[in-house]
């Protein structure tokens, strides 16, 4: 990375703010390393670095737009918190889902890796073997073994409703859109088992099969409004069950 002198960079920034697109592009290019440095600090959140890099770059652009030379700070001093803020806001809006998914995936991955290595090695795997298999530091695996997450067998049925059963193994890489707060707890299976048939069908169709409310209404023979009301009621019910 060729580093222009800070005086040179300041000139570029001035020109960029005056509307010089080329200067702006050059200035952005010179500061992408900054964005990457910040993105690296979010490596443990279950997001692809490239995705966070794009978000962080938006923060960089905002910083360029908002930076005022009367501020008595260096541009980078001003920009870094903005880049961090942009990424954090993105994570917060998408979050519990992503983090909880990555945590749940970890639990399932540990179980899966354990079974696989047990078969391959014909003995209990070591923690480092598990660590290398899953790509997660050994200490994190120790935390993942904590029983706050129920250990589920991949061949357990996640749920079954009039048709082919869906196993947890199928859910590993799906893009479920699950309602923010309750997915933080992973006792979904238990909560689901305590709903009545109609409630369970709605949740499965909406959140595991990603049908729209209208599609669900059609399948169940009720109106979309009824689906919406029922869904709200069910989610509150589940939330109460899980926070007890």
């Amino acid at each position, binding site marked *: 990375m060729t580093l222009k002198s800070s005086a040179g960079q300041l000139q570029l920034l001035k020109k960029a703010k005056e509307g010089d697109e080329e200067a702006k592009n050059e200035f952005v290019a010179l500061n992408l390393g900054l964005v990457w440095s910040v993105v690296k600090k979010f490596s443990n959140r279950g997001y692809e670095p490239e995705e966070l890099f794009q978000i962080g770059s938006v923060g960089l652009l905002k910083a360029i737009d908002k930076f005022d030379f009367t501020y008595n700070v260096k541009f980078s001093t001003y920009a870094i918190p903005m880049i961090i803020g942009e990424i954090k806001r993105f994570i917060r809006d998408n979050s519990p889902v992503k983090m909880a998914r990555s945590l749940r995936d970890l639990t399932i991955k540990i179980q899966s890796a*354990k079974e696989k290595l047990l078969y391959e090695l014909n*003995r*209990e*795997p*070591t*923690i*480092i*073997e*598990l660590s290398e298999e899953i790509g997660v530091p*050994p*200490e994190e*695996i*120790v*935390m993942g*073994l*904590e029983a706050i997450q129920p250990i589920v067998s991949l061949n357990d049925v996640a749920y079954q409703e009039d048709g082919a059963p869906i196993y947890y193994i199928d859910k590993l890489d799906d893009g479920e859109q699950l309602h923010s707060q309750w997915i933080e707890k992973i006792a979904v299976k238990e909560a689901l088992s305590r709903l009545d048939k109609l409630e369970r069908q709605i949740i499965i169709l909406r959140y595991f099969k990603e049908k729209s409310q209208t599609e669900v209404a059609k399948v169940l023979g009720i109106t979309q409004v009824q689906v919406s009301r029922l869904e709200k009621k069910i989610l509150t019910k589940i939330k109460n069950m899980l926070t007890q």
Partner: protein
Amino acid sequence: MEILNEMTIDFLSKSQNEAFARVVVAAFASQLNPTLDELADIKTAVSEAVTNCIIHGYENNLGTIRIKAILRENEIEIWVQDWGKGIEDIEKARQPLWTSKPELDRSGMGFTIMENFMDRVEVESTLGKGTIVKMYKTIKNKK
């Protein structure tokens, strides 16, 4: 044998710290690359010793528990210490099924479990001063 790594942790004798103590020692021990079973053994033994500090050493009052762990090439050494009541007769206390607190639903199995899940257990104690339980487990390098 040469010391590879070492840590000492002090925490309050509250029962919610029992799980915390288990994770700390397990996370540290993971550096020796144990199997999951060996890790489970270590966690269980630590749990027994820590629980003893809480309910016998401090008799459910507040005090400090210290865990020290030393990693050598093929071995982990764990000390669990309290500055509480102390043990009057160590030999008797270590007998299977002997407990000074039957009324608390204690079965007297703690030391037996520690001895079974670790390779060696030593107990030092002075009445009124405190107790140190030292446990050792061999963790062979597997490859």
